[in-house]
């Protein structure tokens, strides 16, 4: 119990953010008079935020290595979109092979940046700022400054399509896409089964286990959430293909960060690079891989985003890096590295996404949306930093004191 409490306290920030997300959803659900969670809008939310989530997961790994960020991801997204359009539309290459080639180009961009950052030890900020310009410039060169459109169906199917309905006649519980609902139920079932099996095997090996109540309530909450999500999606046109991509990325990277040696080494590197190195962590290699991976995921996001726009534009992906970085920090990543989770990052990205979407539905201008998003980012990080500095009000009292000192001097002058 004691240990559970410690775990809870160590992750307090994330629970707070999850709570904040729920509150935001609730508030916008009321303000938009129920439009926010309508099946069509939920589907929209997924399309709008898929690429942000993908980029944010990559960014998280970079941030974990020691607060390093990648400013070039927006340009990378644009360059990959441009390459895909050139291959497929201009040159008429096979869409599937072209996508593979685009992913390889992404990895090459990552190797380029990773080399300078990890082995030449040029600050990541500088290297990626350079990358931001270089990749944007290459995009313009590849596209000749023009927008290329439209993509063929095979390409679009990867991201803007929905999974096909195997039982078009059946209308289980009145949903339009029965297959999607069944998949949702299946996922919830698989989740429950693995949880129960894990619980039993740990019990058999005599490891400490959580109480049956915690296990049961967690399973109930998550299963209900999953089923609700898929029910909502099934009520519209079904599961978007891109949700599968995002889902796989989230599961794989969540596993990587929390269950593998490599993930642990990543946290160690960000927590204390010297200590990590002296404990046998290959710090340079890890830093290198983080940036290669970032560019790989940027390539994935680039493919998804070009499909969503159904075009490759020279201006694509502008400010994406800021959305990705913002999601990580709102989701509890530390600006110094070593702290942050995939789950938290997802929550951060959803907070940003729902703020965007909710305010758009309400007809608030994008100008104000930016102001609100900026303040939310600052607020989220400030509340964290201040709560850690126990003497959070110390600096305020100093500030007031120094002000009053100046006022005294002013009084003498008068």
């Amino acid at each position, binding site marked *: 119990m004691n240990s559970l409490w410690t775990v809870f306290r160590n992750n307090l920030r994330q629970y707070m953010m999850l709570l904040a997300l729920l509150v935001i959803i609730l508030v916008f659900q009321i303000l938009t008079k129920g439009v926010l969670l309508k099946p069509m809008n939920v589907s929209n939310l997924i399309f709008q935020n898929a690429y942000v989530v993908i980029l944010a997961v990559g960014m998280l790994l970079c941030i974990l290595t020691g607060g390093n960020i990648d400013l070039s991801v927006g340009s990378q997204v644009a360059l990959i979109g441009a390459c895909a359009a050139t291959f497929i539309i201009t040159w008429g290459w096979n869409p599937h092979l072209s996508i593979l080639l685009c992913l390889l180009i992404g990895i090459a961009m990552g190797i380029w940046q990773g080399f300078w950052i990890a082995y030449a030890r040029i600050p990541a900020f500088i290297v990626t700022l350079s990358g931001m310009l270089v990749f944007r410039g290459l995009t313009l060169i590849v596209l000749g400054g023009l927008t290329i459109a439209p993509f063929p169906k095979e390409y679009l199917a990867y991201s803007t399509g929905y999974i096909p309905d195997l039982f078009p006649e059946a209308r289980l519980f009145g949903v339009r896409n029965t297959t999607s609902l069944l998949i949702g139920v299946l996922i919830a079932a698989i989740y429950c089964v693995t949880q129960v099996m894990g619980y039993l095997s740990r019990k058999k090996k005599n490891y400490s286990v959580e109480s049956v109540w915690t296990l049961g309530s967690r399973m109930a909450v998550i299963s209900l959430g999953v089923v609700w999500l898929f029910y909502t999606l099934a009520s519209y046109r079904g599961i978007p293909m891109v949700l599968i991509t995002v889902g796989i990325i989230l599961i794989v990277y969540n596993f990587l960060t929390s269950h593998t*040696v490599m993930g642990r080494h990543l946290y160690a590197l960000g927590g*204390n690079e010297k200590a990590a190195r002296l404990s046998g962590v290959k710090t340079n290699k890890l830093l290198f891989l983080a940036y290669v991976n970032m560019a790989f995921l940027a390539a994935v996001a680039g493919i998804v985003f070009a499909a969503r726009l159904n075009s490759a534009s020279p201006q694509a992906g502008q400010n994406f890096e800021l959305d990705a970085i913002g999601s990580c920090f709102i989701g509890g990543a*530390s600006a110094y590295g070593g702290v942050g989770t995939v789950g938290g990052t997802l929550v951060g990205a959803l907070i940003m996404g729902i703020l965007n979407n909710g305010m758009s539905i309400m007809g608030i201008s994008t100008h104000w949306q930016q102001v609100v998003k900026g303040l939310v980012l600052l607020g989220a990080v400030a509340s964290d930093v201040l709560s850690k500095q126990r003497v959070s009000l110390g600096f305020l009292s100093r500030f007031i004191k120094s002000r009053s000192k100046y006022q005294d001097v002013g009084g003498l002058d008068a």
Partner: protein
Amino acid sequence: MALLEMRSITKEFPGVRALDNVNISVEEGEIHALVGENGAGKTTLMNVLSGVHPYGSYSGDVLFDGKICKHQGIKDSERLGIVIIHQELALVPYLSIGENMFLGNEQQRRGIIDWDQTYRKAEEYMSIVGLNENPRTLVKDVSVAKQQLIEIAKALAKNVRLLILDEPTSSLNETESKKILDLLLTLRREKGITSIIISHKLNEVAYCADRITILRDGSTVETLDKRVDDISEERIIRGMVGREMTERFPHRPNTVRDEVGLEVRNFTVYHEQFTERVVVDDVSLKVHKGEVVGIYGLIGSGRTELAMSIFGQAYGTRTSGILIKDGKTVELPSIPKAIEAGLSYVTEDRKESGLLLGSSVMHNITLPRMDFVSKNGRIDRDLERKYAEHYREALDIKAPSIEQLVANLSGGNQQKVLLGKWIYSQPDVLLLDEPTRGVDVGAKYEIYQIINDLAQQGKSILFISSELTEILGMCDRIYVMNEGQIIAEFQRGEATQEEIMNRIMQHSKGEIGA
């Protein structure tokens, strides 16, 4: 009346009492030396005086000119004319001499700097300290000795009354050092400036000080007066180290075996940045299984660099020499290789390079050998928990659970986590660098017991420390290191503190003379 009086100063850091009822009084116009071993509390005492540790964070009184000081920061003490010059000089390399001299004390009118006056005044103060340079020269372009003079000139520009110098000559040669000391004597004679000088070089202390206060383990031992007392180096050393050693170290039966666990032959290592500088100079040594071998040397003697370069060349460039482990020559070009070969290195600074403070006890312990708790790169969290739990119990780490963040533990328990992490890695050879630094007496005793247990298990232990008593109390054999070389070797019982200190002093002198 004394210019400065510090009465029963006690200062505690979490888990350590750094100063315990210290008294010191400094007369107007004298040069007062403060001596003591590393960690005796000299620097802490000066930090209390200068306001680095603000009023209220210590107990006792600081009286300057007979008035109680309530410094909140360095600014407050500087206003009274107390200026401290730290061992690591606080000059900005890419600003000129003149700019540095008036940093924080700018020659200004309404926020606009008068550069003509700045450089004119800078020249004035430079001539007082005998520094012949253009005040527009960047600080990075002048020698360390001259930088020291700039610091003193900077202090003069602040109308200093009490000048505190922390190891002012540690990186200077003899001629340069003498110049600094003579300058202090001149400033006292001509300007009546009082100084406190902290130094390890006892011949220098004897040369310039009027009175000498000796600190030991955070308490004042005595104050010697040049006019009355004998202030020979031997006398000062006796004051610095003379303490009884009963019951401070747990008993260890003879555990030394015949086999040699680790042998180092002709190790030479060069500095990482200044690749021409030899840091470890042709060192050879051996450690038997079950043996605790001490390396004693002052800070900067190359002991840490030696240990780190043995440990997978974690430090240094152009490393040459042979490592023999269990009778076989081994190549250890990287840290992972060294760990795999059964070496471990407990760093001297747990916060800076030893622990992940923001991670749990468990994650810290298992970090060096994740392969013990993982399969194909996948961590078995339950197994990891079991290991961590085992070492928490074995080393008696006082933490509510292994999920506890290391940052929330006391210094002694953090140090035990650091040891636990390396014991978990199943090493045959442990390189312990200051394993008891910054922990209190009780925790020290527990750490000594852990070391004894390891020796009993047949591990080879290299024990680096700057505390002589600890080295003498714990080690089967002792190497003395100075300026990168091993200058002496003693068997247990042969060595005395005076003997070791004398060897170092003599060796340093020889170097300077040569």
